[in-house]
C-alpha cells in the first residue's frame, strides 16, 4: 500500500515569495491533516479536512496561508507571502476518519525562508 506522498521534499525561498506544497493521501482516507513542525517543537495542526470540507482551520494564519483539497483527494497548502518564521517542516497526514483512526504521515517538506 502506497503511503502519504508529499512534494517537494525541500524548498528554499526568499521572504515575501510564495510557495506551494502538495500532498497525496493514502487511497480511501477521508481525513487529511496539514501540520507545521518548527525545529525543536511538536507538530502543530494547521488545517484538517474531512473529504473536501474543512473540519478545523483555527490555527491556520489565514492572512497568508491557504489550503484546499480538490475532490476530497489531493491537497495543496500555499503560503503567500512567506515570512522568516514560516521556516519549518510541513507534514501531511491522512487517516480513514477523525478520532480513533491511525494517522499516517508523509515525509514532510522542509521549507527554509531566507
Amino acid at each position, binding site marked *: 500500500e502506497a503511503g*502519504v506522498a508529499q512534494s517537494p521534499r525541500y524548498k528554499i525561498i526568499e521572504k515575501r515569495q510564495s510557495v506551494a506544497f502538495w500532498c497525496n493521501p493514502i487511497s480511501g482516507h477521508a481525513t487529511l*491533516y496539514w*501540520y507545521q513542525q518548527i525545529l525543536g*517543537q*511538536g*507538530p*502543530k*495542526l494547521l488545517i*484538517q479536512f474531512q473529504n473536501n470540507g474543512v*473540519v*478545523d482551520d483555527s490555527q491556520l494564519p489565514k492572512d497568508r496561508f491557504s489550503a484546499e483539497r480538490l475532490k476530497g483527494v489531493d491537497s495543496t497548502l500555499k503560503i503567500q507571502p512567506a515570512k522568516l518564521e514560516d521556516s519549518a517542516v510541513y*507534514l501531511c*497526514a491522512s487517516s480513514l476518519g*477523525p*478520532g*480513533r483512526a*491511525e*494517522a*499516517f*504521515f*508523509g*515525509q*514532510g517538506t522542509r521549507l527554509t525562508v531566507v
Partner: protein
Amino acid sequence: AQSVTQPDIHITVSEGASLELRCNYSYGATPYLFWYVQSPGQGLQLLLKYFSGDTLVQGIKGFEAEFKRSQSSFNLRKPSVHWSDAAEYFCAVTGANNLFFGTGTRLTVIP
C-alpha cells in the same frame, strides 16, 4: 481544550538500559492516546495507541505504554534500549476530531 505535556525535552540512556518517557494529557472526555516516533528527516511513525480496555498496550519495536486515568498519564516504556531507538518521540491525544501533539522528547542512546 486538549493538551499534551512531555516534561522531558532530552533523555540520554545507555544501550541495554530501560527507558521511560513521560506524557501527561488534558482532555475532558475519554481520550484516545498515541505515541509516535520520528527519525531525522522522516515523517512520524505510530508506535502504539490506546482507545479503551486494557490499560497496558503493546506496540511495535518492543515498546509499551500504560494509561493511568487517575494521573492523566500515558508513559512509554521499553525494557532494553537499542542504538536504533535514538529518535524524537511524540505523545498525542485526540477526541472526536483533532490530533494534538506534545513538544517531543529527544532520545539519545550511548554505547
